[in-house]
């Protein structure tokens, strides 16, 4: 199993957000999380990445995640759509992040831009990007180191119909390649079409709905 959650409980300011969550996710699996706004979907993703305190145990790729100290490994993440740097081009933004660990060549960065359909805009400054293009770039940064796990919070946000179809196809392809994908979405049709299992978060509990 690539991701293991055991008795995970998350409280924010003494208010319980998620209670006693257990989940096992393996390779080649795509898991969808649905739920209304504020139900705790993003909170759960943050906990898996190690960005918020939790009780219980979260283990990713055989390594325990320690909240705030030891983050998720071998993963590409995108939670809450953080902005990329506006005055840099798409390629420069990716290069900046690639330079942190120096495992990706410029050629690989260009390949990932091809994958998300942004190669024609690689030299364009991000501040001139549309919402959909920014979203594609965020997805590109998650993919660029070819991680085993992808954690994507609302990956279809801001995308038009064609964009949704292209990104769905890309995620499907990545799943076939053996990647583990965990994503949230408001669009239940997309989730159903893409995911092997779908969980709903309701009242702080996680229910497997399909």
């Amino acid at each position, binding site marked *: 199993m690539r991701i293991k959650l055991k008795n995970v409980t998350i409280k924010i300011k003494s208010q319980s957000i998620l209670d006693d969550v257990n989940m096992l996710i393996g390779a080649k699996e795509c898991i969808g999380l649905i739920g209304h706004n504020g139900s705790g979907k993003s909170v759960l993703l943050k906990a898996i990445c190690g960005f918020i305190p939790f009780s219980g145990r979260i283990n990713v790729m055989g390594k325990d995640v320690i909240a*705030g100290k030891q983050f998720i490994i071998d993963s590409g993440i995108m939670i*809450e759509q953080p902005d990329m740097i506006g005055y840099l081009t798409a390629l420069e933004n990716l290069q900046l992040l690639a330079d942190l660990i120096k495992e990706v060549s410029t050629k690989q960065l260009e390949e990932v831009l091809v994958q998300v359909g942004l190669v024609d805009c690689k030299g364009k400054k991000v501040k001139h990007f549309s919402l959909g293009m920014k979203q594609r770039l965020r997805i590109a*940064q998650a993919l660029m180191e070819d991680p085993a796990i992808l954690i994507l919070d609302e990956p279809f946000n801001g995308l038009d119909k064609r964009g949704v179809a292209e990104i769905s196809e890309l995620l499907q392809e990545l799943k076939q390649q053996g990647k583990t994908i965990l994503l949230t979405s408001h669009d239940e049709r997309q989730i159903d079409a893409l995911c092997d299992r779908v969980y709903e978060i309701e009242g702080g509990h996680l229910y497997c709905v399909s």
Partner: protein
Amino acid sequence: MKGYQKICFLFLTAVLLASVSYVYVSNNLFQYSVATNSQLYKEYFVHKLFIFPDYTRLDYMEGKNVFDLMPFYFFLLSAIVVGALSFLSRGKVYFQYYAARLKTSRRLFSRMMQKGTYDLVVFSLSYHMAIICLIVYNTFNYQEDSQTFLLQMVLLLIIHTLFLLALYRFLFFVYLMLDDVGFVLMLVGVLAIIFMINLTFPSLSIIFIWHDLHWVISIIFSGIILLLTQFMTIFMPFHL
């Protein structure tokens, strides 16, 4: 801004700030010089700029008021803001991209502070160099020991830069706990408190000049804060 553009911007901002501070101080001193028909020394400019707290015994420091503190206060404030822009402008959520790649909070914090540290040092260096140039250029015919003046300025450069680095690192952790608004309020408040403490107890010499050994306490103070922030780098968690 790209690398060289940023360096130019930092340099020009620092030179502009130094020039404004210098003009303000030199106007005061020239008025004093005309009124008392006395000669000016390079040291006077340094004292006026960096607030010699024992000014009651020096007649050229007379008429000191709160506005005399402003140039130095704004320099410290601007230097910290210049450093902090590297993380303030991106927002905490952006650093999830760093966290996922760097794996541990310790490496993440070091990386988050790295760019700002560099910018802050460039800014402080430019400001002090500009002050040195302005004083030397405008007082080149004064009879006095330029070597002592330069040594004093180099020491000031070192203690101010160390102090700024310590405060910058400390405020970085404040930002992690309290976000942008908390950071700005703490920055303004902490600087004001340090000014008040140092003016009330001049011999503490945290940032202001106090006789020959003024730099020792400042270095110890900054060293303690730097050590404290090193512990914070190890033990502080990163939460979104």
